[in-house]
């Protein structure tokens, strides 16, 4: 090589060497930036995607009846979950992977499209496992496990599954669980914050929605455990970092007896079936019954119909019904206690009451006292008693017997009865109702007056001559004046309580309504000497080792200030109902003499339009009773919507339940 060329080469290689060092320098600079400056950021990202906190769902407690029959339990089951990100590739769903998975599951409902749909719905939480299918059978589990290495992000998780061992038995009392909703989560968080605690609920939790599952959710649910795991890129756990074992929830022992509950439910079903076959009650299908221990307030059985959907309301605590004649014992107590009558005073019944609105009675014309008045359910007798005692006394004794306000039962969503149109017509309720009615009436009349004014203006504009104008003005002015005075009259009418309102209330009609549970509580109070117990469904709470950790004691809410003498007379009168000539005569004919049933039937027609179809009139049937009359143990209340008569519908249910209780149905 020539010297010049040699020199030139030296210079060029030197240039190249510098360029080479620049390139390596850039790489080292970038490396230093990532590893020395930004290392914290990347280290925490590495931690975040490697460490996954997985919930181990705690086993929820059992619910069993007082006789030890387990109604609800948690069974281990398997569910198929996938990670959203693992199902995606290059911004699209990985069709090949999904179709392989679908082929393994062999569920005609779980198609590739369905998987994508479920994944789409859960794409908000990239690392939260998406549940594709629950309750996998063992064969499917082993098929999936066998090919787990070729299914990134797919896992089979063992989770407890709520299982109802006796079908729909007591379903309305038990309630059900479901995934926590956004609003439930917010409410729970708010509540916990107010108490200065951390909410025990989190996204994706299952929570009791209604019934016992809801009311006792915190007791039943236990404490979830956690698994801190290290996962690989496929989202599959490679090692456990830390495990906090879950703590199983506590179990509930109910006051409900399985046999009584079954008897009540089958009686409801068979009665409904037979009512439906009769023309006068062919709309039957709904109703509820409650059996209480009068000495404690324990709920021995509680059922509601229809039951085809567990989500439907529990009518025993949520349905409000006009009591009809089942209210008459309250009127009787009010009259006796306020000293306006004696049990033997005879009142003449000429067929209808002699004061407007002259409400009819179905009892034959003749003389009535407390006993035959109750037995025949004479409307004249009870209207007179109501008039004498006055609405305030009726409301006072009704309230004493527990008919105002919720009973305080340990079940979710009991009707509180606090609205103007609900519960007893107490002074406050009446005021509320009257204000409401007066306002509604005013609005109605104001609208009419405004319409007239408009009409007048239009007519005046249309009038051509002065004469015509004057005539029109006169005509409308008088019409408006009439409307204004009618408004005042109506306002006054609606703002007042009328004698007729008292008559209606006295015979169990008019503005009042109660839940079947309230009726049962009120009958219990009559039976037990005036003690209003707070009804309850849960007798014991047991921890997961089976030890009793809490026992429920009867709670006396209030004691009615009613003399034993009065109660004895009313009880005796109620016994007449099931006696010869009584409204429920013959219903308990097969009962032995020492088990006498005191009862009262009732029929009522709520204002709803379903109750008048053409010429046909429908009625709700009601029945209340307690037994044995001489030393009461149990009280029962039942309402049968569209049942037509009290003894013919709800009464038959009562008979079946009492037979079961007293062991009279044995062959």
């Amino acid at each position, binding site marked *: 090589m020539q010297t010049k060329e040699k020199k030139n080469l030296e210079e060029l*290689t030197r240039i190249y060497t510098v360029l080479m060092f620049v390139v390596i320098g850039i790489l080292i600079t970038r490396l230093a930036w990532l590893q020395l400056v*930004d290392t914290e950021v990347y280290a925490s990202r590495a931690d975040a995607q490697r460490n996954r906190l997985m919930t181990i769902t705690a086993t929820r407690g059992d619910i069993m009846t007082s006789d030890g029959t387990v109604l609800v339990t948690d069974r281990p089951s398997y569910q198929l979950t996938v990670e959203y990100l693992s199902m995606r590739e290059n911004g699209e769903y990985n069709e090949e992977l999904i179709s392989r998975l679908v082929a393994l599951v062999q569920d005609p409902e779980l198609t590739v499209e369905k998987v994508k749909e479920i994944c789409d719905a859960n794409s908000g939480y990239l690392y939260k496992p998406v549940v594709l299918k629950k309750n996998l059978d063992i064969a499917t589990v082993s098929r999936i496990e066998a090919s787990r290495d070729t299914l990134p992000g797919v896992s089979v998780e063992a989770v407890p599954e709520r299982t109802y061992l006796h079908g729909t038995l007591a379903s309305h009392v038990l309630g059900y669980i479901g995934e926590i909703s956004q609003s439930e989560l917010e409410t729970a968080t708010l509540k916990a914050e107010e108490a200065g605690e951390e909410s025990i609920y989190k996204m994706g939790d299952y929570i009791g929605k209604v019934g016992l599952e809801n009311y006792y959710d915190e007791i039943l649910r236990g404490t979830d455990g956690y698994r801190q795991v290290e996962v690989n890129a496929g989202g599959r756990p490679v090692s456990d970092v830390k495990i906090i074992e879950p703590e199983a929830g506590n179990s509930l022992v109910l006051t409900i007896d399985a046999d009584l509950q079954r008897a009540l439910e089958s009686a409801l079903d068979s009665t409904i079936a037979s009512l439906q076959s009769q023309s006068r009650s062919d709309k039957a299908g709904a109703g509820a019954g409650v059996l209480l221990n009068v000495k404690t307030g324990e709920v021995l059985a509680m059922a509601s119909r229809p039951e085809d959907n567990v989500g439907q309301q529990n009518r025993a605590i949520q349905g409000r019904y006009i009591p009809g004649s089942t209210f008459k014992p309250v009127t009787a107590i009010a009259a006796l206690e306020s000293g306006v009558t004696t049990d033997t005073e005879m009142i003449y019944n000429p067929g209808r009451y002699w004061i407007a609105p002259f409400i009819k009675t179905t009892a034959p014309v003749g003389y009535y006292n407390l006993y035959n008045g109750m037995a025949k359910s004479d409307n004249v007798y009870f209207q007179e008693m109501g008039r004498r005692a006055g609405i305030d006394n009726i409301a006072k004794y009704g309230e004493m017997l527990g008919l105002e306000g919720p009973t305080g039962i340990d079940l979710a969503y009991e009707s509180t009865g606090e609205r103007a149109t609900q519960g007893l017509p107490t002074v406050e309720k009446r005021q509320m109702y009257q204000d409401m009615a007066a306002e509604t009436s005013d609005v109605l009349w104001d609208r009419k007056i405004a319409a007239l004014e408009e009409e007048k203006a239009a007519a005046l504009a249309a009038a051509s001559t002065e004469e015509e104008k004057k005539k029109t003005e006169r005509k409308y002015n008088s019409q408006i004046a009439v409307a204004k005075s009618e408004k005042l009259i109506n306002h006054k009418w609606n703002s007042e309580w009328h004698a007729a309102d008292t008559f209606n209330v006295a015979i169990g009609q008019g503005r009042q309504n109660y839940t079947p549970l309230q009726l049962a509580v009120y009958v219990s109070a009559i039976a037990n000497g005036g003690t209003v117990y707070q009804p309850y469904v849960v007798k014991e709470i047991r921890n997961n080792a089976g030890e009793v950790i809490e026992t429920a004691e009867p709670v006396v809410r209030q004691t009615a200030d009613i003399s034993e003498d009065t109660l004895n007379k009313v009880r005796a009168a109620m016994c007449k109902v099931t006696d010869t000539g009584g409204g429920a005569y013959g219903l308990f004919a097969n009962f032995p003499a020492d088990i006498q049933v005191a009862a009262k039937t009732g029929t009522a027609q709520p204002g709803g339009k379903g109750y008048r179809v053409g010429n046909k009139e429908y009625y709700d049937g009601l029945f209340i009773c307690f037994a044995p009359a001489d030393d009461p143990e149990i009280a029962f209340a039942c309402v049968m919507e569209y049942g037509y008569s009290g003894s013919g519908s709800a009464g038959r249910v009562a008979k079946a339940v009492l037979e079961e209780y007293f062991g009279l149905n044995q062959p």
Partner: protein
Amino acid sequence: MQKTQKERSCGTALMQNFYRLLKKMDFSMLLTVTVIIVLGLFVLDSAAASKESNYVMKQLLFVGIGTVAVFALLKFDYSVLKNYPKEFYIASMVLLVAVLIIGVERGGAKGWFAIGGFTLQPAEFCKILMILSYAQFLSARRENLQTFQELIPCILFMVPPVLLLMMQPDLGSSLVFIFIMVGMLLIAGANRKILLGLFGGSTLALIIYLIGVWKFNWWCPLKTYQLNRFLVLFDPSLDPRGAGYNVAQSKIAIGNGGLWGEGLHMGSQSSGAFMPEQWTDFIFAVLSEELGFIGACALLLLYAFLLFRGLRVAMLSKDLYGALVAAGIVSMYLFHILENAGMTMGLMPVTGIPLPFVSYGGSSMLTNLVGIALLQNIYVHRQRLIF
């Protein structure tokens, strides 16, 4: 049977000759390569821990073959290679065309021959063949590299292999050929202004074009996933399950390594297999996570030293041909390092080219060792031997 005296003395002379050659080798370069390879084997052992077959043993096999080649080729003066530029060029073309016809596909590119239990990547060997051919081509035109017209054939020379590689498609390797061309043209003494204008300009144009595609949806022949490998340079959040994911994961791995690293086999990103092909394309990220800045920086400095010695070989070469071959080999190494390490750090587009002496792969290891053999050969023959 007894050997004659003449035969014996002749044999002794040859051996003496070989020892003299051995003594003239660049031992610092050999030591550097050895350290890089050993370091690479440790990292490979960790990166491929999840794989069933033993990658380290397979890699060692190719290291062995390559090492034999380094010493065996020492005896022959590289100058004989000057005589076959056409043959090398034609051989390259045949290999690259053949692989398009009978090759097998891996990772979406049709770039491998399947022979027995092994797969060979002809693109790797073609790099050496093309360097040898191009060196003679440029050496013959050393006086005529100053005008634009004179440079045109020099550029056209590289167009066929680049196009054939793009057809696989193997974008990474085609970029390697372009970079080799630029490096060799520089050493050949081509007009630097034209070189800078041409390649600096076209790089700039490419960047502007990509921004246009990205922001204004300009026309682009690439498929979306290919395009995304470039576009993630501008927006790492793009394509979070494809190219963006890979780069994001490798950046997390490197960043997670910190100063000292997590230790071999201890990298959470690496052992969790968050990066694809982490024993080849993303092995630099594994090394950086497990050995930290200390380890990764040491590797880059070892490379720098290796390249520095390589350029020294070019400078000391007895002729321009040797200097150009050395420059071509250095360029090949340098671009592989820049592209591979740069990609894992989000500086370069995502392409699948290996990190020299570290990534798993027989073809690549053999090619790189043959490169070392050539550098040593040029170095030991830097002066005419007199004996």
